[in-house]
């Protein structure tokens, strides 16, 4: 692959869970003109007060290396791992999807939800809220299929990811 090719990378960042740390990371991306396709953050270690940020970004090899180096030099950042280059990893996203409709459209929505293993977590006579978990493209596909069936609202978590195998970050 040529070095100038733009590629999507999933980067996991372990940070101190303190005020402003997310602003530092986001400010770094906006200030230096990097892309953020998705970003999630939550505390993962209560005792050591660590949060984990998962960022999906894209860039040339040089830009991705630069993003990692820039993240690593932030003082509250403990660890930066490029899950895309590190080896196989699992990436998942959760979405809540509201579909409004009656009659055949409603039945069809339920049928497709079943195929995608989406669960109905709320229901009225004219609507469903589906919960679906999976890779980003699976969610995209499901949402695409819901569109003609009365897609009304979408809420997505963004990607969380973890390396396969026994080793921690």
């Amino acid at each position, binding site marked *: 692959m040529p070095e100038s090719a733009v590629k999507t990378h999933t980067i996991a960042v372990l*940070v*101190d869970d303190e*005020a*402003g740390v997310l*602003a*530092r990371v986001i*400010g770094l991306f906006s*200030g230096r003109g990097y892309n953020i396709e998705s970003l999630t953050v939550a505390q993962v270690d209560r005792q050591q007060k660590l949060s984990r940020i998962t960022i999906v970004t894209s860039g040339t090899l*040089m830009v991705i*290396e*630069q993003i990692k*180096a*820039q993240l*690593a*030099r*932030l*003082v*509250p*950042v*403990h660890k930066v791992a490029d899950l895309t280059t590190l080896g196989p990893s699992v990436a998942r996203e959760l979405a809540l999807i509201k579909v409004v409709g009656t009659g055949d459209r409603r039945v069809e929505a339920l049928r497709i939800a079943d195929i995608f293993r989406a669960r109905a977590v709320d229901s009225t006579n004219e609507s469903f809220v589906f919960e679906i978990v999976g890779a980003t493209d699976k969610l995209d596909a499901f949402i695409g299929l819901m569109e003609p069936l009365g897609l009304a609202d979408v809420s997505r978590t963004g990607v969380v990811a973890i390396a396969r195998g026994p080793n921690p970050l």
Partner: protein
Amino acid sequence: MADQGMNGAQVVLKALVDQGVTVIFGYPGGAVLPLYDELFKQNQIRHILVRHEQAAVHAAEGYARSTGKVGVVLVTSGPGATNAVTGLLDALCDSVPLVCLTGQVPTHLIGNDAFQEADTTGITRPCTKHNYLVKDGAKLAGVLHEAFYVAAHGRPGPVVIDLPKDILVGPAPYVAPSRSGPKSYRPQMEAEPAGVAAAAALIATAKRPLFYIGGGVVNSGPVACAALTALIRRTGIPCTQTLMGLGAFPGSDPLSIGMVGMHGTFEANWAMHDCDVMICVGARFDDRVTGRLNAFAPNSKKVHIDIDPSSINKNVAVDIPLVGDVGTVVAALTKQWQAKSYQLDQAALADWWARIRTWRAKDCLHFSQSGQVIKPQYAIERLYQLTKDRDTYITTEVGQHQMWAAQFYKFEQPNRWMTSGGLGTMGYGLPAAMGVQIAHPDALVIDIAGEASIQMNIQELSTLGQYRLPVKLFILNNQYMGMVRQWQELMHGGRYSESYSDSLPDFVKLADAYGAVGLKVDKLDDLDSAITEMISVPRAVIVDCRVDAKENCFPMIPSGAAHNEMLLGPGDEAEQPMSDDGMVLV
């Protein structure tokens, strides 16, 4: 002072003392009054009262860069903090270690748009290496110590600590400094041995090697500078310095081929273009150095020594990155060079030097001084000749005079040259000179200035008066924002839009008004005596040196051009019109 029963302000002062701080630069205000009250009650720390917060930061930069210590700033909330922002970014760009204490409204008012409230940590986040908002007195002492660690370790930089007033007034426990910094911040000091071995082996194969060294060498310390100088002399490899690296290698050494970059020497830029192995030490391939990237040193292998991993492969892809402290890495490289008994191909090196000599023979810094109108280059040359054997420190403002100072003043030691490189902050030189003079009371401290830049922090003449600082302001007065005018001449058809310095003050009277000594010189024959008088007067002096208003700074690599497309002088201009790509660059 007992550790029990201390309030936040006392804890701050004690932490500063325990960090070895003896001087702080600042300006009081409501939110920091508790700190000023504690300052009043003690005599271990000297406070230098500036006249504008930006100047406090530049003064701390001058102090830090001339001593290698961390500079300390104290300003109030709101406008105090926002006025400091330019200085903070200047220090970030040039990797100067600072700790800046900012006052803040009490914690219960934060977010209420209180009087003199600003989101200081928000505003300064991209302008600092790190910043803190202390909302818990229990953490205050730890944060202060950590701030000094972060400012000074790894690539140095400014750190802001935002201090709400209730934290300063309320009780706070004191803890002594610990040696280690935060767990998450451990800069790599030593490069991988395999990389060092590969670098030494690569250098040994070079036929046209070149050292390209920058401010990181100065930051690594005098020992690192000496070690690098020894390695360069051992190998006989030519050495070019960046603007920030001047003094890291002795400027008058025959192995020095001068400054590289936009206004660097012809020989340095051609050597950069034609070298086959480039050893970059503590420099960052800045756009002022590289010129057009796709034509940058096209046939070279590159070694890059830098303590900041994010400097590696940022602008220019390098072959062998060595992440670590310059001093440590150079020592390892030297050891490897000796252990393997490496020798450069002497015939090739002689050929390389022969080529460099032909470039040198162009005498790119040549200027014609005739008649009584003083050429600015001549003024710097005379200043250099008349001050080089003294204990001299030079600061500058930003513009043509800065480049002429860099070209014509030779620095034999590090920490003697203070200039705003990365940010290019007009108004830097006078306050920086104050900081240098505070650190070195008996030294000769000269701000080489322009008549436009000097007015950006001219109020600091009052500070010079208060502390009897004998700083010399040597103004090259050409009645233009010279570098702006030069670009307008070369790229905008000579339309000098707003670059004329109209309604200039009478600098001699201005000096008088502030209790300094003013000298005006506009004839060649009077130049030496004016400089001599400036040196001998034991007070602050302004020299209004009237120079040729139309002189331009050459040689020059036009924006968007390559090293080997350098213009030597006005005669070259017509032949090489600026590219469209170049027009958009700054």
